[in-house]
């Protein structure tokens, strides 16, 4: 599979180290994710059917993914009957080429984009820009990171790594407005700037949240209105969807919308839910003259074939698992070096981006907070464990820094020895005696070998001990 090219892969160990060292970044993440988690907690508490709805939504996904072939046939058929042109992209390159071709044929010059992780995944913007098109991200967060020529650091809050002061400075520099750190002022400035761009755009590109097979309807969920504008004003509209977005029936949609909003953004319902089934019809004043739907595989069928990883295809891209993840909250999204950061990123990135992301499944304590908050209860820890096992057998083997390699070898050695409890107890006894002179009230300040990194990073290590009571071996 020809995956989308990730950035010239910097090493996760280096980038995550930079993340934790950035106290300012950690403060911003703590602020924003904390605010989100408070909203979610409140939204969950006041919605008694929350858990039942999660189960219902999960069951629908399970069913849909379980007969994805049939549903895709039905969806394509219905979309075409509604007047859409459907393109199947096996990988990122095919998707990009097709979109470029459509743009060329339509003579498009100015492209407005609604928020879409799928187009980030296929690295669409650079390709469009290289072809001479002007591409503007219109979701406020995306717009901000585009102005900074950065990649989003979160799948639904792209600029979560920036403070309002950072953004104020950015807008003062790039938009030439007087400096302000007032979110309302900054938002108004972006609105003014983007309104003209919307009215002048000749092509709109957005992602898709759900695609209803029964009716050939794309469901787009958003708060700002930029997705609606991108899919309504320009003459050509392209929706890019992963093949896993298909659900069987229109009546399934309500089961998703509320849990998605409640966990994703801490709302009861997002401001706009758009149901789009086709291009403008005769006599209509707005809507695109041509509507294209790009169905993207790009490694999804590989995930489907893996019975454990398959569950990752249920993901609604709500972003909640990022906000609750203690690792994400300490290192930020950019440290992952992947379009998809955080817990969900750690399970989908290795499949999408290959060895460059092979270390990500190890970037977790397996605490399970992600699964707890996930609106479709994806068992992320289980998938991480599965991938650790699979990635461990992959060729070429994962490139570990020397310390990590030593730690891995150490645990393998421990596992071999731990088969012999009696020996282990003797060793513990020996270690306890040996360590005694070095211990300060029961703790060691410096550890050798694989445990070196423990005491180097802000923690003393408990000295080994042995027991005396009768029931003790």
């Amino acid at each position, binding site marked *: 599979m020809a995956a989308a090219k990730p950035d010239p892969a910097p090493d996760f160990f280096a980038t995550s180290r930079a993340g934790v060292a950035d106290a300012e970044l950690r403060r911003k993440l703590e602020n924003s994710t904390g605010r989100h988690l408070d909203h979610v907690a409140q939204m969950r508490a006041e919605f008694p059917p929350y858990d039942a709805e999660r189960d219902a939504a999960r069951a629908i996904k399970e069913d849909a993914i379980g007969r994805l072939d049939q549903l895709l046939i039905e969806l394509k058929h219905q979309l075409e009957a509604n007047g859409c042109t459907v393109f199947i992209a096996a990988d990122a390159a095919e998707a990009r080429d097709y979109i470029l071709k459509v743009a060329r044929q339509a003579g498009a010059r100015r492209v407005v984009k609604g928020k879409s992780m799928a187009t980030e995944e296929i690295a669409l913007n650079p390709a469009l820009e290289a072809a001479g098109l002007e591409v503007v991200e219109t979701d406020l967060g995306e717009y901000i990171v585009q102005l900074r020529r950065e990649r989003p650091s979160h799948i639904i809050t792209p600029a979560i790594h920036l403070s309002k002061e950072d953004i104020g400075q950015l807008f003062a520099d790039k938009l030439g407005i007087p400096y302000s750190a007032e979110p309302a002022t900054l938002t108004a400035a972006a609105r003014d700037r983007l309104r003209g761009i919307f009215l002048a755009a000749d092509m709109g590109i957005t992602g898709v949240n759900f695609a209803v097979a029964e009716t050939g309807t794309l469901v787009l969920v958003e708060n700002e209105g930029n997705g609606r504008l991108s899919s309504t004003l320009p003459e050509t509209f392209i929706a890019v969807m992963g093949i896993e977005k298909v659900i069987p029936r229109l009546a399934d949609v309500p089961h998703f919308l509320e849990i998605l909003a409640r966990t994703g953004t801490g709302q009861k319902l997002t401001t706009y839910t758009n149901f789009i089934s086709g291009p403008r019809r005769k006599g209509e004043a707005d809507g695109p003259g041509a509507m294209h739907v790009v169905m993207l595989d790009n490694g999804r069928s590989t995930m489907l074939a893996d019975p454990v990883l398959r569950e990752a295809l249920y993901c609604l891209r709500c972003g909640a698992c990022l906000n609750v993840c203690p690792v994400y909250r300490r290192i930020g999204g950019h440290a992952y070096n992947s379009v998809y950061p955080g817990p969900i990123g750690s399970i989908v990135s290795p499949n999408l981006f290959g060895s460059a992301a092979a270390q990500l499944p190890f970037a977790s304590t397996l605490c399970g907070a992600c699964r707890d908050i996930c609106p479709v209860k994806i068992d992320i820890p289980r998938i991480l464990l599965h991938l650790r096992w699979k990635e461990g057998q992959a060729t070429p083997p994962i490139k570990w820094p020397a310390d990590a390699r030593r730690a891995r070898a150490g645990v393998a050695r421990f596992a071999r020895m731990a088969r012999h409890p009696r020996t*282990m107890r003797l060793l513990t006894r020996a270690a306890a005696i040996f360590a005694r002179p070095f211990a300060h009230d029961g*703790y060691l300040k410096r550890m050798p070998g694989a445990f070196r*990194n423990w005491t180097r990073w802000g923690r003393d290590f408990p000295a080994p001990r042995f027991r005396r009571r009768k029931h003790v071996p």
Partner: protein
Amino acid sequence: MTEVRLFATCLAEQFFPSVVDAAALVLERMKIKVRPLKSAFCCGQAPFNEGLREPALELARRFLNSCEPGTPVVIPSGSCTSMVKIFYSDLLAEEPALAARAAAIRPWLFEFSQFIVNVMRVKYVGARFDRTVAYHPACHLTRELGVVDEPRVLLGQVEGLRLVDFRNPEECCGFGGLFSVKLPHISAAMVEDKIVRLKECGAQAVVANDCGCLMQIGGAIHRQGLAIETFHLAEVLAAR
């Protein structure tokens, strides 16, 4: 008289033997006969979490062969209990005989607080502990086993103990087994933030049910030279 096997767990055997002593003492005071489960040393979670399934499998085999269905096995760790109760099913997927044994043993496996509250139906163990205490809910205990209230119920009955809340208690302490030394910078950042919150709440002691958390939180507290002590729940319940 009830008889239980007490599985010490590798971390406690090596670094926290007093936890095993205390757990045994608390159970014995409840007129339970405690037999240590000696023929296994480790449930295999450490290699399993690292994706090293073969070595983990051998440890699982050893552990399962040391237990027998019909006798409760009590484990003073939420993490090791979840390993056997939950993660073994993936580990043993290709070993039907062992998987069947695991299924037979699973209902007889209890985390320490779970056993006392849900099986023995005891809340008051006659303990006295004169300190202000913050309870750190360990991740596997809470999210894998669903043991949320049991430790708090037990702590609530301890004389002299004042339980205080702190911000975001459920967030992981950052231990994560090998994670703590493979990605030490992230692990250390997590515990650093946890300790900031613990300091705010004015607790004199932190109590958890998992030796991994105790190592991590205790190690960081000791490095920072703070006057907060760390205890396993069993130690608190054994105190008089």
